[in-house]
């Protein structure tokens, strides 16, 4: 399912423009969404899930127009949504909660529903806790219940908003793999702050800032934005003030810094190969190599 977004704006009461004139096409497959806190990722996903109505603009998912009630319902029939701010009913068991959501998704056949709920409990490794009240679940276990409910109806469009928050490393990697495998000919929109997760699963990615699109391209393209901008600096003095510090490691001669900056941040700086996170930082701080992207100042185009 292809998503087409044009001229999308969402202004919350109080005047915050969370999405500000967004144009974006999301193809089939896994698609990553990056951006700082407050960039508008959750707002965009809630609009796509039919929960929030945009202030203006047009969104189509497949052939359905989200601007109409019928279109929204049609999209929701084929949608799995894992909200960032996930809650469950503490007085239900995991199995009951999933059964309830499955019913609301229109899975009327009892046998089919039971089997599907059982399968998904297995997928998220909660079978042995299936009949315990959710009240006693840890944060990561609740998150896994959230993942299971999103997959219930075998959706063509899966929207997951920071799905790996709170998962232990093993579960995180398991879920990441599960998402990739699930994607296939479906559309999966993944928002996360763990840039590495996007690098491991998505071919294409968009970066939002203040409700606007500042990057849209492949993961490799995003990495290249930091080409020639990543430096290693070893110093026992204060950190260089130029650029963005990506990491700081204790070193025999003081500290070793990894820095993203347009030019060498200090005389002894050594150039490094960029990674995806460097590319993201370069774009997010507005210093990325200009290449056909709207956010870069026109004067720096090659």
């Amino acid at each position, binding site marked *: 399912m292809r998503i087409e977004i044009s001229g999308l704006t969402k202004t919350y009461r109080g005047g915050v423009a969370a999405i500000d004139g967004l144009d974006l096409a999301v193809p089939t497959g896994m698609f990553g969404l990056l951006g700082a806190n407050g960039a508008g990722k959750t707002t965009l996903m*809630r609009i796509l*899930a*039919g*929960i*929030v*109505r945009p202030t203006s603009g047009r969104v189509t998912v497949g052939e359905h127009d989200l601007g109409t009630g019928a279109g929204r*319902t*049609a999209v*929701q*029939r084929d*949608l799995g*949504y894992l*909200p960032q*701010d*996930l*809650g*469950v*009913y*503490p*007085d*239900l068991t995991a199995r*009951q909660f999933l059964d*309830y*959501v499955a*019913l*609301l*998704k*229109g899975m*009327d056949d009892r046998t089919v529903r039971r089997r599907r709920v059982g399968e998904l409990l297995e997928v998220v490794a909660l079978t042995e806790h299936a009949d315990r009240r959710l009240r006693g679940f840890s944060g990561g276990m609740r998150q896994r219940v*959230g993942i299971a*409910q999103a997959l219930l109806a075998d959706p063509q469009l899966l929207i997951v908003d920071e799905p790996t928050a709170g998962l232990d490393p093993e579960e995180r990697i398991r879920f990441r793999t599960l998402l990739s495998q699930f994607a296939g000919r479906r559309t999966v929109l993944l928002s996360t702050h763990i840039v590495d997760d996007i690098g491991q699963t998505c071919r294409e990615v968009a970066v939002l800032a203040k409700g606007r699109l500042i990057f849209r391209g492949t993961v490799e393209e995003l990495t290249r934005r930091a080409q020639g901008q990543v430096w290693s600096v070893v110093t026992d003095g204060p950190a260089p003030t130029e650029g963005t510090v990506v990491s700081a490691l204790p070193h025999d001669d003081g500290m070793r810094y990894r820095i993203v900056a347009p030019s060498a941040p200090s005389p002894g700086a050594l150039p490094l190969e960029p990674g995806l996170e460097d590319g993201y930082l370069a774009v997010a701080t507005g210093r990325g190599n200009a290449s056909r992207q709207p956010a870069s100042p026109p004067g720096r185009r090659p």
Partner: protein
Amino acid sequence: MTTFVASLRYEFRMQVRKRTVWIVPALTLVLFVLIGGSLLRDLFDPGERPVDPRTAVVGLAVQLHALLSIGFGCLLADRLIRDDRLRVASILDATPASPRARLLGKYVGAGAATAIPVAVAYFGFAAAYAVDTGEPRALGWALAAFGAVFVPGLLFVAAFALAAPLVMPAPLFRVLFVGYWLWGNVVSPDMMPTLARTLVHPLGGYPLAALFDFHGIDGQEAWAGPIPGATLNALRPDPTPALAWLSIALLLIIAAAVLAGGHALRARRVR
């Protein structure tokens, strides 16, 4: 239809398992019996109880309705806002299920679960009375009184209890509701404007007077109709059976309107 049934079933299940749903009415009854002076005791005292089983059972309905509806309203006050508070709403709102059907299922399901202890108490006392007096007819009257007096009144209260916390904190609603209930049912309408004895009296004055010919345990009280010197007398015509049915219909219509208003308010707020 599926959505309505699913929501009803799960809302019922969640509410009926809540311990407070059982504790609150039980404590209310115990306190009331301890304070004394109630029909609950007189019913089993041959010297004190009304001679007519209908008066006894309908009087019991009035007393338990007035008493247990307080807890009933308070126990339902968190049901609608809790979906947002527990952050489950996003998941539910992203399903294709009609939000209207979900709300209706919640209303009926949670309402029924909260009404079960009330019904258990009422039919329990009525059955004990029927056995004690050897009057099986008492059970028939109890069933009729439950349908015509309890059910519309509880549906009316439940609609407000679900919707009002959208515009005020639930604890404030509880305080205002308890205050109103006591004020509306204890203070005489010629001292302060209240809904008592009007067509929209949630205690069911018109059905009591016109359908059950009930005029208090002692037969001396008026449950519906004008009160000299009181405001809102336009809503207090002289009771007739037709007006009793109208009164029931009005309570249900108001409940539906309040629920629809709550639904619209929540839908607007989410956007």
